[in-house]
C-alpha cells in the first residue's frame, strides 16, 4: 500500500525473483510499476531472460516482494518458547508462553530465527541432548555470521528489550519480558547492509 488506505496483495516470491533482486542495487523508487533495466546491471541475466522470451527488466513490485521475503527469512525472529512443535511436526503458537525472564531476555541465545533451520543439525550431540525438541527446533541468533550482527538493548529501565539487526538496518524487534508481547517491524530503505563486516 502506498497510502495506508488501499492495500494490494503481493504474490509469494519465486526463486528467480530472489536471484534477480539481489542484483538490483539502490533505493526503491516508490512506484510499484517502475521497471529496472537489467541490461545495465547484469548482462548475463538479461541475456538469459531474452533467450527465454521475456524482457530484460525487473519490476519494482517483484523487487519489493523479494526484499520482503528476504528480510523475513534472514532476520525474522521470535523469542524462545513462543512457538512449539507438536510431535506430528506442525508448529503453532504456544498459548501458554509467559514471556522470557529478564535474565534470559538479555541473552542472544533466547531468540530464534523463524525460518527453516540451517545449522540445527550441525550441533554436537551434547548440545542436542540439552535441547527440548518442542521449543528448540529453530536456529538461535548466537551463531549468526558475522558475530555481533545484532544489537541488543534494554529500554525504559529494563521493561522493554529491543534487538536491532545490523544486517538489515531498520529491522527492530521488541519484547516485553514476562509478558506475551513481542514483534518485529522494518522501517528503512530496503537494502541489505553488505558493509557489515567492515563496520564491526
Amino acid at each position, binding site marked *: 500500500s502506498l497510502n495506508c488506505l488501499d492495500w494490494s496483495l503481493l504474490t509469494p516470491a519465486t526463486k528467480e525473483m530472489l536471484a534477480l533482486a539481489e542484483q538490483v*542495487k*539502490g*533505493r526503491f523508487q516508490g512506484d510499484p510499476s517502475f521497471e529496472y533495466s537489467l541490461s545495465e546491471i547484469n548482462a548475463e541475466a538479461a541475456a538469459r531472460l531474452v533467450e527465454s522470451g521475456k524482457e530484460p527488466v525487473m519490476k519494482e513490485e517483484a523487487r519489493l516482494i523479494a526484499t520482503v521475503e528476504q528480510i523475513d527469512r534472514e532476520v525474522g525472529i521470535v523469542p524462545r518458547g513462543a512457538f512449539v512443535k507438536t510431535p506430528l511436526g506442525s508448529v503453532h503458537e504456544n*498459548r*501458554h508462553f509467559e514471556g522470557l525472564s*529478564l535474565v534470559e531476555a538479555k541473552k542472544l541465545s533466547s531468540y530464534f530465527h523463524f525460518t527453516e533451520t540451517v545449522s540445527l543439525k550441525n550441533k554436537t550431540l551434547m548440545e542436542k541432548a540439552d535441547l527440548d525438541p518442542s521449543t528448540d527446533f529453530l536456529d538461535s541468533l548466537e551463531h549468526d555470521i558475522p558475530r*555481533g550482527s545484532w*544489537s541488543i*538493548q*534494554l529500554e*525504559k*529501565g*529494563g*521493561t522493554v528489550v529491543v534487538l*536491532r539487526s*545490523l544486517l538489515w*538496518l531498520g529491522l527492530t524487534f521488541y519484547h516485553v519480558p514476562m509478558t506475551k508481547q513481542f514483534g518485529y517491524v522494518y522501517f*528503512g*530503505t530496503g537494502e541489505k547492509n*553488505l*558493509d557489515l563486516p*567492515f*563496520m*564491526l
Partner: protein
Amino acid sequence: ERGHGPYQPHEPGYGLDQPGYSPYEDEIPDPQTRMLAIKNAKAYLLKTSTKSGLNLYDHFANILTKILDEQPTNTVDIIENISKDVKWAQFRKKMDTLRDEHLILPTFEAAEKYKALFIKEDGEEEHEELEEEMGQPSLPNVMETAFYFEQAGIGLNKDESYYIFLALKNLINVQPIQTCRFWGKILGLEMNYIIAEVQLQEGEEEEEIGEEGEETVDEGQKEVGEVEEENEQKAKEAEQPKSTYKPPPEIPKEANGTGTNKYVYFVCNEPGTPWVKLPPVTPAQIVCARKIKKFFTGRLDAPVVSFPPFPGNEANYLRAQIARISAGTHVSPTGFYQFANEDEEEDEGADTYEENPEFEPPPVAEMVESLATWAHHVKGILNQGRCVWINPSQKSEENEEEDEEEEEEEGDEQQEERGPPLLTLISEDEGMKDIPAWTAQASTDLIPQYSVAILQSNRWPGAYAFASGRKFENIYFGWGHKYSPESLTPALPPPAQAEFPSGPGITETVDPTVEEEMAFKAAQEEALAEAEEGEDEEGEDD
C-alpha cells in the same frame, strides 16, 4: 463421599458411576462390591508419590479448580502445561533464617535516575539573577519540535522526548551556554547517544585555548630537553643515517567558534546520565572518517580499529561524523538567514549570518515542490577537512623558526580548494546516480492548511528537516553513516616498499674457506711458476 466433581474422560475412574459403563461391569455386578471398587480406585488416587509428596487425587483436584477458575480456551490442548504449572506452584521455598536481599529491579533504578531530572535545583534565586545579566540562554522547546516531527512519523516517544528536555535544562544550568539545540540521536551497538548542539559563551572558550597553549609549551620544553640529550649521545656514537622522510605537515584544526568547530557538542547515553563534552574536531579526523564506516558501540572511550588508522577514539569519530552530518544536512528555508555584510568576499569566508527580519515564509506547498526554497546554513567541509582552506606550507614556515632542527622542505604546492559558499540552495546538491539528494514531502495531503513540509536527506539517511511558517528545525535519528549505492571499498594498505635492488655489487656471497684460499694461492703460484719456466725456457732458447 465423592466431592470430586465430574470426572473427565482421561481420568481413571471415569464412567465408574454410570450404570453399565464400569470396566469391571462383568466382573463385579454386585453394587456393594462396586462401591468397594470405587473406594479402591480412590485409595489408589490418594496414594502419595514417594518422590514429591504429592498425590494424584489432590493434583487433579487442583488442576480442575484452576481450569474452572480461569476457563482458558481449548483447555484440552494445554492441559499438560496447566498440570506443570500447578506442580510448580506447589513448590514452597525453604524458610531460611536469612532473608533475601531486597531485589532492586532495574526498572526501579531507571526510575530513580529519571526522578533526579525532575527535581528542581536549590538556589534558584541566584540563577535568576545571573540570567538577567547575561541574557537568557535559549532552552529549545523539544516538545514542540517533537510534535512537528511526529506529524512526519519521525521521532522518539513522548516520554523520552520529555526526559531529553529536562536533561537539556540541566545542561544549561551547569554549563555557561549561549544557545542550545537538540541535535539528534545516534544509535550504537550497546548504548545510544543523545546529542546536544551548543554554543558556549565567549569567555569559556578562551580559557580552554589558554590551557591548551600552556600544555603545548610544556611539551615543547620537554622536547627541547630530550633533543639536547640525544644530540650529546649521537656525538659519541657514530651518526646513524637520518631518514629524510618528513611527514606531511599537520593541518591545524579550526579555532573554536569557526568552521567545523562552530558548535560544541555534548553527548549522553541516556537522559539522566551526565553530559560529556566532545573534543573539537581536527581535519585529519574528518579526512579519515570519510574513508571508514564503523558502528558506534556506545562507549566514548572505545578504540576505533580501522584502516586507515583513525587518529582518536570513539569520541573523536563521533564528533567527526556529527560535523559531517551537520555540514551536509543542516538546512533552513531560503532567506531565513542572510549575510551580515553583503560585500564580503568569498576568500575570507562568510561565517556569520543572522536572521533576516524581513523573511516571509513561503507557503508549505511551495516548500515541498521546489528544493530551491531550502538553503544550507552550515559551511560545507572541503577535502582538506576544514571549512576554510589553509595552505599547509605557509604554516610550517612559522614552525621552522621555532624548531631547532631545520630540514628543508619540498612541500608541493597544494591547490587551493574552494567549497560551496554558505547559504547555497540545496537544489544544487548533487545526487548519487539517479537518486536525488533530498526528498521533500508534505506531512499530510488531507489537511493542507496545517500540514508541515518535511525534507528527508538521501545522502545521510536519518537526517530530517521540517518547516512550517517561521518555524523550522533539523534533526538526526540514525546510525551515523552516509549512504552510498555501492558497497564500501576500504583503502588497500600501501604496497610493501621495494627493497634496494640487489646487484652483484652488494650481493652476499659465501666467503671462501681457508682450504679454498690455499688451493687458489697454490694454483696462482703454479701459474706463476709455469710462466717463469716459460720465460726461462724462452730465455734459454735465446
